[in-house]
């Protein structure tokens, strides 16, 4: 870095510091450093378990880890102060580089000939209009458009450019990245994410925030009419579907289904299918077979007390065991006979032996579970900004990859002995190919004599 040579220390020192700060923010060296530093930080975030609370690290008995967690938030890398600082520095650095480059890009856009990547010198004894026309038409074949012409006494200048839009690629990519980072900040400050568990038939307008677990309210009430779990014949889940209604001031405003990959959005707040749980039983199905051979089935809800057909007794469900035993799902029944004391009996879906009550064989056929659906609630006003940034990024890449800026200029200087012709060209990509093409075309003109 340059040091000021001036002997006046005060102001020149501050000038040189300012200069160094400016150099830091406009240098690509900084960009490369920051990219690798962020990569390193991100790797840390995948190696060290994230989301552990400080208290738990404190009792884990590793004081060094605790201190690291306290100062560097290594238990929460992606929300830590230093990771945020790195991202902010990257944003500033990209901005700095953009401001440094933009005037050059603008200049390149406006003028047809700036710096060239190759120059060819020719001499011709012709000084006529014929030579001009010939050179111009060759240039036109290469570039596919008519040139910009500027003429002065004894001097003619033709210049072409092609696909200037290529120049927009660089700023679009870099502005795109800044826009994405800004969008993520908008989301982090004004957005929220939460989760709620609602049983079928229930409704609520409260949910808990992730990760703080605080309770918040939605501006509408979520009513869950039903939850359905569909499986493939192979047993893998095929569909999780929550049929919900949203109501405001007692009136339904929206109704629809929420599935994985199919959220429901109202007033900017989206509801996503996240998980489910069995919270109870809707009904139970039992079969009964009497000694005489007549069989029947009964479907009843778990609180109901029912008669056992053919036996002088009643039964009632006490509890359900959703399949922790090898025999599958089981229920505990309370058998209430007229004479005996109430009996507690467990019966499982996969039992080999049937249950016998006063000669009636009872089998547990199945049950319909009562589900609670887990919905994720998300609000992120920054999402559109992020997608805007992504679009800019993609569009910038398309321009950079699929367009190419090419410039060609021909300068003729006439003198008494003949004409000096200078041809210079520039191509942002495929430089060699462009140069070969230009050379090939112009070397083929017999009136031109190549000079070194």
């Amino acid at each position, binding site marked *: 870095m340059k040091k000021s040579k001036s002997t006046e220390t005060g102001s020149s020192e501050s000038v040189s510091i300012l200069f160094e700060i400016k150099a830091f923010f406009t240098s690509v060296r900084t960009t*490369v450093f920051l*990219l*690798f530093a962020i990569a390193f930080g*991100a790797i840390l975030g995948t190696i060290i378990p994230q989301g552990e609370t400080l208290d738990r690290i404190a009792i884990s008995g590793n004081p060094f880890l605790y201190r690291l967690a306290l100062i560097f938030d290594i238990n929460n890398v992606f929300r830590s102060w230093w990771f945020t600082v790195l991202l902010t520095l990257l944003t500033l650095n990209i901005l700095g580089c953009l401001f440094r480059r933009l005037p050059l890009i603008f200049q390149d856009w406006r003028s047809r000939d700036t710096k060239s990547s190759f120059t060819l010198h020719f001499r011709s004894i012709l000084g006529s209009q014929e030579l001009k026309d010939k050179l111009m038409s060759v240039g036109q074949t290469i570039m596919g458009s008519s040139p910009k012409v500027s003429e002065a006494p004894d001097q003619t200048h033709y210049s072409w450019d092609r696909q200037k839009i290529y120049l927009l690629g660089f700023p679009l990519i870099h502005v795109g990245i800044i826009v994405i980072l800004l969008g*993520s900040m908008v989301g982090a400050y004004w957005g929220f994410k939460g989760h709620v568990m609602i049983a079928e038939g229930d409704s609520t307008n409260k949910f808990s925030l992730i990760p703080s677990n605080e309770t918040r309210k939605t501006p509408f009430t979520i009513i869950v009419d039903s939850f359905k779990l569909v499986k*493939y014949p192979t047993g893998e889940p095929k*569909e999780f579907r929550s049929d919900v209604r949203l109501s405001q001031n007692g009136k339904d405003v929206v109704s629809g289904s929420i*599935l994985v990959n199919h959220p429901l959005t109202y007033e900017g707040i989206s509801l*996503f299918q996240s998980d489910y749980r069995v919270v109870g039983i809707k009904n139970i199905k039992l079969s009964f077979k009497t000694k005489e051979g007549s069989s029947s089935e009964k479907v009843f809800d778990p609180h109901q007390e029912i008669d056992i057909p053919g036996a002088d007794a009643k039964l009632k469900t006490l509890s359900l065991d959703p399949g922790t035993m090898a025999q599958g799902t089981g229920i505990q029944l309370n058998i209430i006979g007229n004479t005996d004391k109430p009996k507690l009996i467990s019966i499982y879906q996969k039992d080999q032996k049937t249950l016998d009550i006063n000669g009636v064989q009872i089998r547990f056929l199945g049950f319909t579970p009562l589900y609670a659906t887990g919905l994720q609630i*998300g609000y992120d006003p920054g999402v559109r900004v992020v997608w805007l940034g992504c679009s800019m990024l993609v569009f910038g890449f398309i321009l950079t990859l699929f367009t190419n800026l090419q410039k060609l200029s021909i300068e003729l200087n006439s003198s008494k002995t003949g004409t000096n012709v200078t041809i210079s060209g520039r191509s942002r990509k495929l430089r060699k190919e462009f140069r070969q093409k230009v050379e090939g075309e112009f070397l083929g003109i017999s009136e031109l004599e190549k000079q070194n």
Partner: protein
Amino acid sequence: MGNIELNTYLAFGYLLWIIGYLITFVVIRERTSLSRFFWLALIVLWILHTVSIGLRWVESYQLGIGHAPLSNLYESLVFFSWSVALALIVVWRRFGTDLVALLGVPIVFLILASTFLIDPSIRPLIPALQSNWLVAHVFTCFLGYSGFAVSFVAALLLLLAKSSDKAANLLPRKAILDEIVYRSIMIGFPLLTLGIITGAAWAEHAWGTYWSWDPKETWSLVTWLVYAGFLHARLSRGWSGGRTALLSVIGFCAVMFTYFGVNYLPGLHSYF
């Protein structure tokens, strides 16, 4: 013949190709006409590979659970090896470097052979994978990865050429290798970017968060950052040759970790 059987034959086809070409390379110095034969053989293998992917697609519809064959580890490995083979063919055509293919096809073989170790059956799509974003996401990511794979191969050759003059005489010119290292990343990087963006769009759609720092997401970002570093070092800092080749090797290690290593950590990408 089913696609799984075809994939087995294909793996052996690639292996035969490698052995055949290696023998030719060692025994016969003049290899122009044979080189042409192996070029055609590689294209035939790749076409069969394409057929195999198409066949699996058709078979999934016959099973009544039709979906693009990009939905689990087996299918992604088959597709990854397909796209690496494609990239090698493109580079061979563009730069005339058969050695890059000779070193690259073993990667194709290894990826395809690794599918012998895992369950090849066609499974129905679980709810999280039932999205059109799946196809766009997997397609762009793996095409990008294949660019990085080719860059990696060229980078290894370049590092080899730099370490010994004897090797350098046998290898393509350093300038060409350097060009392949750079150009492949120039193609791979935008594709990876698109892969990350489509993945983010999908996550937003399915879970309501476009970015949740799950290990796979984070590692894909690490990969992206390494290659972004590569491009800035090369384009603005004037790095080339050995230093950028080393970055390309590091980048491909990050790709491999993103693809395989992360699977052992819990996260949203547990199906790949």
